[in-house]
């Protein structure tokens, strides 16, 4: 299946999810368990994506300059840097690592 298909499918479902909260009867969705699940799911997915982008390379675990990016971003975040600065710090750390000859 082409990438376009999945782009369109993801776009459609994202909108349907948003709309469902307005249209479905409240008793279906407005339960503590649904809210808790959504909160947990969000944290779990973002944590997984973070580590995946840090050490994943296809099916292999590769330790390289992306670890520097993770550490640098964590420092920037703990210093309450704005989001865009955090992203730039991450890029800078990885780029400097490669400049220094690290993988």
């Amino acid at each position, binding site marked *: *299946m*082409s*990438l376009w298909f*999945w*782009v369109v499918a*993801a*776009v459609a*479902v*994202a*909108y349907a*999810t*948003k*709309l469902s*909260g*307005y249209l479905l009867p*409240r008793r279906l*969705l*407005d339960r503590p368990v649904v809210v808790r*699940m*959504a*909160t*947990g*799911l969000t*944290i*779990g*997915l*973002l*944590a*997984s*994506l*973070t*580590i995946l*982008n*840090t*050490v*994943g390379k*296809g*099916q*292999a*675990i590769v330790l390289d*300059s*992306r670890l520097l*990016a*993770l550490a640098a*971003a964590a420092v920037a*975040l703990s210093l309450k840097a704005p*989001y*865009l600065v*955090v*992203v*730039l*710090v*991450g*890029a*800078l*750390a*990885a*780029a400097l*690592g*490669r400049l220094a000859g690290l993988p």
Partner: protein
Amino acid sequence: MRTALTPATRMGLSIAAAVGVYGVSFGALSVGSGLSVLQTCILSLLMFTGGSQFAFIGVIGGGGTGAAAWAAATLLGVRNGVYAISLKTLIEPPGRVVPLMAHLTIDESTATATAQTDHDERVRGFWTAGVGIYLLWNASTLVGALAGDAIGDPRRWGLDGAAVAAFLGLLWPRLKGRDPVALAVVSALVTVMVLPVVPPGIPVLVAAAATTVWWAWQHRRGLRT
């Protein structure tokens, strides 16, 4: 002009200015992950929920299939449905604005609306943040996508490091308290453990499933979340 700004519109505008520009990083990372400039812009225009957009391109960039990217983006979008419920309760929007309001229902517009105490202010906060971010996010996505297209090898510019930072930046504000941190650690460990044995893109979904089970189990034990 100053008199036209209420606390809610002022908050909405500041949030829009702060958040809207990071569409640049999404645009650049998206073309770096292998999506075209058009596909990248379609995601920002029509999906319009940063976390899911980053998830989609993150899975594709990691070699995952379109189906895995779809699933990760969809699961990460579930929280928007929950936001919609609380906004519907708080604002009670007329039916004709619901289709547009749904599209603008994201982390930031919800936060701006729920931070207000007065009904009209909530409405103003929602629309100011939602429309403001929509315009800036899409403009900056295009800028980032064109720039990402022009710079060539993403690794040399540390763009893979930018992706790491982008995800950590989305995760960080949600790590308030011990349980969310434990949850994030469990999810990261599961991801690393299954990474070598399942196809690319699937570890995220395994981690999501494990996370949900763990969260539900915590709840059963009566631990506070």
